[in-house]
């Protein structure tokens, strides 16, 4: 029966996918193992996010969900509150204080002239969606295993190297282009982490249809702008967001507006691995690859300063992320969230499994008695009678200790099953 239920679940999921997509390809084994599984040329839908007065805030090629957030380049902060069809409404939450502060600091800051010695730690770059390409230059939006995105990545590597950084560039393809690609690229990201990198960049291109959405003249060049994506399904999201804000603020202070926005999307994107892991969208598939290459080169130009490679920050400027005394409010927020969730989840589970406050309290007391009772300090305290630990194995009139112990062992054995 259980197997049947499982299969039914899988069947339902498959059915939901096909019903929601009105153009269904004819069934063939190719669907499982062939080219059709690599990209989806049928979908080019774009979600438009407007504020409550109807002004366009952003366009995204992914499904927008309530709770997604946008930090615009000028510091405006929005949260999606309603989604109907391909139109979403975002509420203006005010100007983001961190972004405004960073922007003010960086405006006063000249690009540091002193070049610090090259750091021992590299920057890691990889592509989760290794087929991504640019239609005007590459002829297709998807070229399996060797997309135009590699040329964009190479350009970023070139610029960072030119600026004195060491770069670990992993060219492993993670095709096909799907969400499971992150399962495969997670291994690449960890392989890069073995070199103890300062930051990890997963370079993508977007799927918004309108090329004008990203096309701008920045620093006298025709470029495709970039978008930074931070995953919300990441326990350490606030720390990654902090890094994204620094990067956007500084990059836009030297090449305005090379970063269009920060988008907080559903997903993890391997960003739980490092607080300085980011996903970059370099233009969209309808931009030319050359535009995207010029865009990412301008972004890369700003990376060393944010990572503290260009020497110590002048007085008054925010310290780079690699400075041990830098303020990282996002990290503390993430820490607080993590601890609160752990305590809340653990507490709720304890309460459910114990059945009542009183029993939960007893269990907790017993747990600390056993786990911490072994510590010499606590043992001494207990010896002095200052710490009461419930150790009675029997209750008057309820069988003998040996029987209890036997039953307990039996129960423990069963529990392990």
């Amino acid at each position: 029966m259980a197997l049947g239920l499982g299969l039914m679940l899988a069947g339902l999921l498959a059915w939901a996918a096909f019903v929601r997509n009105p153009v269904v390809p004819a069934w063939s084994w190719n669907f499982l193992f062939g080219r059709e599984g690599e990209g989806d040329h049928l979908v080019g839908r774009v979600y438009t996010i407007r504020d409550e007065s109807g002004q366009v805030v952003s366009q995204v090629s992914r499904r927008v969900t309530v709770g997604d957030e946008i930090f615009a380049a000028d510091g405006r902060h929005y949260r999606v509150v309603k989604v109907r069809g391909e139109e979403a409404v975002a509420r203006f939450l005010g100007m983001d204080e961190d972004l405004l502060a960073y922007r003010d600091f960086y405006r006063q800051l000249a690009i540091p002239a002193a070049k610090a010695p090259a750091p021992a730690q590299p920057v890691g770059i990889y592509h989760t969606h290794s087929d991504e390409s640019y239609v005007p230059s590459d002829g297709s939006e998807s070229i399996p295993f060797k997309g135009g995105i590699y040329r964009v990545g190479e350009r970023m590597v070139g610029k960072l190297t030119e600026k004195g950084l060491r770069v670990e560039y992993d060219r492993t393809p993670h095709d096909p282009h799907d969400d499971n690609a992150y399962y495969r690229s997670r291994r690449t990201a960890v392989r890069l982490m073995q070199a103890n990198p300062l930051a990890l960049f997963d370079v993508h291109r977007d799927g918004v249809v309108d090329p004008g959405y990203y096309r701008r003249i920045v620093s006298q060049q025709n470029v495709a702008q970039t978008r930074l994506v931070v995953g919300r399904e990441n326990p350490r999201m606030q720390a990654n967001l902090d890094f994204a804000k620094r990067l956007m603020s500084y990059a836009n202070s030297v090449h305005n507006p090379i970063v269009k926005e920060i988008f907080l999307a559903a997903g993890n994107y391997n960003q739980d691995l490092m607080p300085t892991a980011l996903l970059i969208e370099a233009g969209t598939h309808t931009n030319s690859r050359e535009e995207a290459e010029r865009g990412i080169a301008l972004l890369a130009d700003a990376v060393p300063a944010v990572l503290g490679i260009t020497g110590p920050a002048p007085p008054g400027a925010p310290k780079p992320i690699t400075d041990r005394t830098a303020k990282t409010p996002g990290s503390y927020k993430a820490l607080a969230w993590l601890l609160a969730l752990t305590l809340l989840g653990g507490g709720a589970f304890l309460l459910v499994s114990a059945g009542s406050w009183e029993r939960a309290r007893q269990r907790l007391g017993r747990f600390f008695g056993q786990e911490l009772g072994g510590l010499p300090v606590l043992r001494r305290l207990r010896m002095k009678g200052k710490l009461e630990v419930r150790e009675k194995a029997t209750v008057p009139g309820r069988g003998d200790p040996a029987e209890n112990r036997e039953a307990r062992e039996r129960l423990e054995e069963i529990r392990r099953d």
Partner: protein
Amino acid sequence: MTGFPVGITALVIVTLLIFIGLAHRALDRMRLSDRGALAVIVAMIIGSFIDLPVPGARYPVTVNVGGGLIPLGLAVYLLVKAGTARERARALAGAAVTALAVYVVGSLIMRGLPEPGGRYEVLDALWLYPLVGGVVGYLAGRSRRGAFVSATLGLLAMDIGYYLWLLARGAPAGRVAIGGAGAFDAIVLAGILAVLLAEVVGEVRERLQGGPAVRGRPEPLLRALRKPDLGKGGDEE
């Protein structure tokens, strides 16, 4: 990860401690003693740095000791130790269903042009695996061990399927690094979180129905369940 500010370093350390704590709690429940569970975690962390190449493959295939060999070995150990052939068959069927469900959702539904996670992306693949593994494992046998086996072997099946896909496509390049992310690989996360999920579902269900089901259960179990003070002095937590 050296050279970062105090906030980031503290965050990393606390996350690690919580992860290890959860892992210990999960492993503790699977025919492992307290110390055994801790030894497995230590071995996984050390093993994270060791990749074993699989010889003779057309594309590079490696098995990471901490992220692949140990969790998969544990899954096989649990299978071997399973009480009945029926239980074994259920766990294996659970793994097959998990692999299929994960493939359908992660590769068929969440793919395509929409960036960055494909269309209909609601839940990242990383969190989808334990969810599917935990639910399937629970349905397949209402067992934590079943959840662990479903999640870990299901993902191994995905990796084998990926290698076959690379062969079938004649890919110019590709790599299958089984458990390549070490202790942070999706195989490990899925196994541990699936066990915890099965445990939470089981406890909530038991609480909702007003206590453990007693009909048809063996007498020693029922006798043990009736004892009100069994946990005292034991290692229940």
